[in-house]
């Protein structure tokens, strides 16, 4: 391709183009390119996102018609390439670069202009040509670095990501200002207003990425101008970065300088001027030698200026100096380590500069400092009885805007000026303010506000950085004073504490409070406010009134008045959501809140919140000073600036994170046994999500490039005791001792801990399974085979663990135990199949009851046998039929199949031999009215009982026993008597019913059985067949008894049964007859109980 021709074409049209819109321009270009490049049909250059915007489409269509390109895509590729060449040629041509000695400030920047701009896109293109940038006619995520536009349509705002591909969208003024300043300015302040709250810090990464990209593109000049020193500082001298663009480069220059400056800046805050001055000049010299380039010289000179101004007029310049430096620091911190990519110590630095981290870890430091005190407090408060509520005096001491006042205490001239604390920032930046002093608050500056907004409210707001050393120092002083005056101190935060001065029995707490406050001020130079009241809640509220720098005493008699007009928002624990909810109910003050009953509060807001609201609105707070909440979990999380190139990066990062967490754990003196790894992945694509999730759960081979944050959390904390060796073992052991004080054979314990560990592991996996529904990752291999299990150990496992394990083994574990017991105990032989049934019951979730029994199975073996016997022959009257009839409905309803339905069926001698707590448990499980039965039974004496129990155990022929029992108890027992009876019957339908019971109806509801009967095709037997009448009688009797049983308590069930019957009888003559026989009985019963007739429809 001849670049000459295209250049001439361009120059020929130059005049015209500047007046034309982009459309005509592109059409021209495309025409030339088409004419010139028919032979270059195929190109190996790949372009994504070829066409963008309507103009390109219209132009392409016209040319496409007569072009030989295979498709639109290849055409656009070619076109883009031509445009690029054109641009390059133009840029190197004399008309631009040579004549106007433009510094290549836009190197590496490639803009795309969207829509109407002032200056026009052509002028911008001109600037780009002149100052080493690039100009793209068509949008491409890979070539464009900045999108320039003045206005965006709504649809593009909403779909910003798809529109911009995550690239910065900047106002054209950025280009102009950069040209005017003769250096590349940060685009952040020029971000399009409509998108202002976008995360600006991502820009860095894009810039960096872009640079790597531009390696491929042929960019001719200027790169060698890069100072190498810069690169080594950030990227360990990786040669790739030699090609860093000007933008990336300048960022790093600045950083370099600022790193140098940083120390002195800190020093400035605390040390004397002269010292610092000299060190400063020294530093700037270093800077000088290090970075000889233009931009750096500028910065350096500005530093020097700063210094000079400081030397000339020391005191008044401080604030401005602070601002300046902070600016620099701010922009530094917004641009520096930024990612796990660049900074090997990222994790450390991340936490070093985090205020939340400071506050979060402060408590541990505090604990270490005052360990004895906190111990003492705990015990003392637990021993203390709140005897006289009237006389308790609680202080709530809170430093006034701690984070600010610590900083400005050495700067009296800032005292009355609005000052805010913020980890970074340039004047226009979007960092959040974390604390503001009272003058600033008067302007409406609040914590959590963007610096930009705060500046808008208060233009002369002074912004200071954190000084964590100073905070720590002041916090320590603060607590020293508090502990000096009072031993019962509960630390809330580094600047806030509760004191219980009741025991001091001071005459006037206000005097003590002012004494403490005075001392705090004299020692730390910061003011504190104190609230005094009868409890912690009121003290805290009083502080609210006391602030700033005051104290407030709310005596008990004034509590009501104080609260009456207090807006509910002021109560701790009431946030936006709760406030909003209450406001909907027209509750704005505590007085209004008090009108609502506790019940309805609890109903509306939950038990705890409701109670809290009720109490707080009355000024009731039963918390004791000194009760420090134990941390439940300790973790560290980084979810900003995490970028990985490969797996190694992520491993490195995780290692650091582990170190951090382990430090914190050690700091608190605890260990944990539940670990949570949190990996937020930034994606909005369902497919990506699914893929990541699958991989995550499968093998943890996720795509590290997508990870945007990693958290490691340790929960279920417990005190680390150096005496004990392993975490798991020691916890299990302690846990076991706490649960069951019984059987602790040494040999068992080790096995147990093994099993326990497995269980824990497995429970985790089970959770995973639940959440993903994937079975594949269940590492069953971790479970020891069933035969390896020591039955004794398993039986001694606590119920929770047992049921978990049992679940893992699919219920086989239980089988094993049952078998084992079968072998070991010869007292009774099961004639039917109780293990099967019991297992079913267990799987139904009633296992806990059983496993409780299993836990103490040795004593219970006899009793279990008893139970089984009872289940088989439940109705043998022992204490008389009266008791039984009473027990019947209960039995049916209670469905405690695993327990004997009545104590009368329990061998009392066995029961009496049980240990006391177990006996109590069993008695507890039985309904109340049976207890008397037991007590009366127990008086009979063991020998008699033994006889009785022998009687129950005698295996009777079921069929025979039915007759003996009589017709009244068809629904007694589990399975109910009728099942056996029907099974024994030679009538087909009755057999079927019994079968259905065994298959489905274990809940004992007839409706369920009938439901299944409906779906079964009944082969209608002949009316003359054997036992027809008898079968009808039997079934009718069954139904009658069922009606009798349920008519009072559950007509719904009866109703359902009869509706089902009606359906079945349409198919079966047998059921028709049954129905017709029973319905009069039903209607009479309904009439007796409800005064009407049941309206049965099928």
């Amino acid at each position, binding site marked *: 391709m001849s670049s000459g021709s295209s250049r001439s074409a361009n120059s020929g049209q130059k005049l015209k183009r500047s007046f034309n819109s982009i459309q005509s321009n592109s059409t021209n270009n495309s025409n030339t390119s088409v004419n010139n490049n028919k032979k270059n049909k195929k190109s190996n250059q790949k372009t994504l996102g070829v066409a963008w915007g309507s103009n390109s489409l219209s132009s392409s269509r016209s040319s496409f018609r007569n072009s030989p390109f295979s498709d639109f895509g290849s055409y656009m590729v070619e076109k883009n390439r031509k445009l690029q060449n054109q641009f390059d040629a133009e840029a190197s041509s004399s008309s631009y670069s040579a004549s106007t000695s433009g510094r290549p400030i836009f190197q590496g920047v490639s803009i795309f202009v969207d829509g109407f701009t002032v200056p026009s896109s052509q002028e911008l293109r001109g600037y780009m040509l002149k100052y080493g940038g690039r100009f793209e006619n068509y949008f491409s995520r890979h070539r464009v670095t900045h999108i320039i536009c003045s206005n965006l349509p709504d649809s593009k705002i909403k779909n910003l990501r798809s529109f911009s591909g995550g690239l910065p969208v900047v106002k054209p003024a950025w280009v102009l200002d950069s040209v005017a300043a003769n250096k590349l300015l940060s685009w952040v302040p020029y971000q399009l207003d409509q998108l202002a709250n976008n995360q600006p810090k991502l820009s860095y990464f894009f810039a960096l990425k872009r640079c790597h990209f531009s390696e491929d593109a042929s960019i001719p000049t200027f790169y060698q101008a890069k100072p190498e020193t810069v690169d080594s500082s950030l990227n360990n001298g990786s040669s790739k970065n030699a090609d860093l663009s000007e933008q990336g480069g300048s960022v790093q220059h600045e950083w370099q300088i600022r790193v140098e400056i940083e120390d002195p800046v800190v020093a400035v805050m605390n040390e004397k001027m002269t010292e610092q001055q000299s060190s400063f000049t020294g530093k700037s010299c270093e800077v000088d030698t290090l970075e000889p380039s233009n931009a750096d010289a500028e910065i350096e000179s500005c530093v020097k200026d700063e210094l000079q101004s400081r030397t000339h007029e020391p005191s008044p310049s401080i604030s401005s100096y602070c601002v300046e430096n902070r600016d620099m620091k701010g922009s530094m911190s917004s641009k520096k380590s930024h990612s796990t990519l660049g900074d090997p110590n990222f994790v450390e630095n991340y936490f070093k500069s985090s205020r939340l981290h400071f506050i979060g870890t402060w408590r541990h430091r505090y604990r270490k400092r005052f360990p004895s005190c906190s111990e003492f407090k705990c015990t003392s408060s637990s021993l203390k009885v709140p005897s006289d509520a009237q006389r308790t005096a609680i202080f709530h001491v809170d430093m006034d805007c701690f984070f600010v006042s610590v900083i400005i205490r050495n700067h009296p001239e800032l005292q009355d000026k609005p000052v805010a604390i913020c980890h970074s920032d340039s004047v226009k930046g979007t960092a959040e303010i974390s604390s503001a002093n009272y003058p600033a608050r008067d302007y409406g500056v609040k914590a959590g506000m963007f610096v930009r907004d705060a500046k808008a409210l208060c233009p002369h707001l002074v912004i200071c950085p954190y000084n964590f050393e100073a905070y720590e120092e002041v916090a320590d002083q603060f607590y020293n004073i508090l502990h000096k005056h009072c031993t019962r101190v509960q630390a809330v935060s580094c600047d806030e504490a509760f004191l219980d001065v009741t025991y001091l029995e001071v005459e006037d707490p206000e005097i003590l409070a002012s004494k403490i406050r005075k001392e705090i001020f004299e020692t730390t130079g910061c003011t504190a406010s104190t609230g005094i009241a009868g409890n912690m809640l009121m003290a805290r509220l009083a502080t609210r009134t006391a602030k700033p720098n005051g104290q407030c005493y709310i005596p008990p008699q004034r509590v009501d008045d104080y609260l009456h007009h207090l807006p509910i928002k002021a109560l701790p624990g009431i946030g936006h959501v709760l406030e909003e909810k209450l406001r909907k109910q027209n509750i704005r003050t505590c007085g209004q809140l008090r009108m609502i009953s506790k*019940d309805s509060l609890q*109903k509306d807001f939950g038990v705890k919140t409701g109670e809290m609201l009720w109490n707080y609105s009355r000024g009731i707070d039963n918390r004791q000073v000194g009760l420090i909440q134990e941390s439940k979990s300790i973790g560290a999380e980084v979810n900003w600036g995490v970028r990985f190139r490969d797996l190694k990066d992520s491993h490195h990062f995780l290692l650091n994170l582990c170190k951090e967490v382990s430090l914190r754990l050690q700091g608190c003196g605890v260990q944990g046994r539940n670990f949570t790894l949190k990996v937020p992945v930034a994606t909005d694509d369902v497919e990506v999500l699914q893929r990541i999730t699958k991989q995550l759960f499968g093998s943890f081979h996720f795509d590290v490039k997508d990870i945007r944050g990693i958290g490691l959390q340790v929960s279920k904390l417990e005190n680390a005791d150096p005496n004990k060796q392993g975490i798991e073992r020691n916890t299990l052991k302690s846990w076991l001792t706490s649960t069951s004080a019984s059987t602790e054979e040494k040999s068992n314990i080790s096995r147990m801990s093994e099993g326990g560990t497995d269980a824990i592991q497995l429970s985790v996996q089970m959770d995973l399974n639940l959440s993903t529904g994937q079975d594949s990752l269940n590492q069953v291999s971790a479970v020891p085979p069933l035969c390896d299990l020591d039955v004794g150990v398993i039986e001694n496992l606590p119920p929770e663990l047992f049921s978990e394990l049992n679940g893992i083994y699919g219920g086989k574990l239980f089988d094993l135990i049952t078998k084992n017991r079968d072998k070991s105990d010869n007292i009774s032989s099961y004639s039917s199949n109780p293990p099967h049934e019991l297992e079913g019951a267990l799987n139904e979730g009633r296992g806990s009851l059983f496993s409780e029994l299993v836990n103490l199975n040795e004593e219970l073996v006899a009793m279990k046998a008893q139970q089984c016997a009872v289940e088989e022959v439940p109705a043998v009257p022992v204490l008389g039929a009266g008791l039984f009839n009473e027990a019947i409905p209960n039995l049916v*309803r209670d469905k405690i199949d695993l327990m004997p339905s009545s104590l009368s069926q329990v061998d009392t001698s066995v029961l009496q031999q049980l240990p006391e707590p177990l006996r109590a448990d069993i008695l507890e499980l039985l309904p*109340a009215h049976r207890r008397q039965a037991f007590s009366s039974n127990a008086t009979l004496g063991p020998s008699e009982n033994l006889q009785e129990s022998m009687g129950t155990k005698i295996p009777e022929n079921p069929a025979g026993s039915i007759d003996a029992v009589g017709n009244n108890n068809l629904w007694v027992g589990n399975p109910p008597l009728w099942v056996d009876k029907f099974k024994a019957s030679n009538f087909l339908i009755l057999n079927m019913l019994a079968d259905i019971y065994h298959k489905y109806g274990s809940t004992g509801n007839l409706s369920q059985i009938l439901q299944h009967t409906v779906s079964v095709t009944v082969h209608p037997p002949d009316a003359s067949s054997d036992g027809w009448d008898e079968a009808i009688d039997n079934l009718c009797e069954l139904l009658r008894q069922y009606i009798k049983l349920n008519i*009072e*308590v*559950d*007509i*719904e*069930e*009866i*109703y359902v049964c009869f509706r089902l019957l009606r359906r079945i009888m349409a198919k079966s003559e047998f059921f028709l007859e049954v129905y017709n026989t029973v319905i009069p009985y039903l209607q009479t019963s*309904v*009439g007796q109980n*409800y*005064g*009407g*007739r*049941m*309206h049965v429809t099928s």
Partner: protein
Amino acid sequence: MERSEVQSPQGETARILVEFLEVAVTSIVFLKEVYPAGAFERRRYMNVVVQRARHPELREYIHSAVNGLLPFIQKGQVERVAVIFFNADNIPVERYIFKLMFNQSYGSKVEEGELEFSLRSFLTKLLVSQSLSKVLPNGCRWEITAYFRSLPQVDTSKDAEFWIPTNTQQWQQPPLITPIKSMNSDPLNVQLYLEHPSFSETKS
């Protein structure tokens, strides 16, 4: 089922029951479309979407009527609570009956969660029971009537004042009963069923 009136009242259970009744009665009135749907607003009760009357008087009527029953329910005196719909001629056309049995001798503490679980299924069933009931004629009215096991003595409680002894209108024939839901969760047994006049009566 035996029931002793002597035992200490299960205030908690009664309270839950009364609250449930209030919601259930409102739901019935809503379902019967006595008032335009706009007169109700969606609320959440025990995690079930229910309706709540918007009009303060309607709300107050239901609330006070049901809450007035609280002392009697506690004593186990209330046998049935009926929501009766009358046609323009003041003849009842449909009655929703809550049959209550309150086992006063139930000793242990009531599991509120358990109770709520049962009551919740109740509400769910009620909400889909519309097909069982009849469309009301125009110009109908409705009232809440409670049937007591015994007439209460003059009560000290203020709430009780809302309740006045009355004679109920009976159908000539025993009504047709359509059970809607039964709930049996110790110590509380609640059954809800519909009563319609028997066919013969409607024809005549």
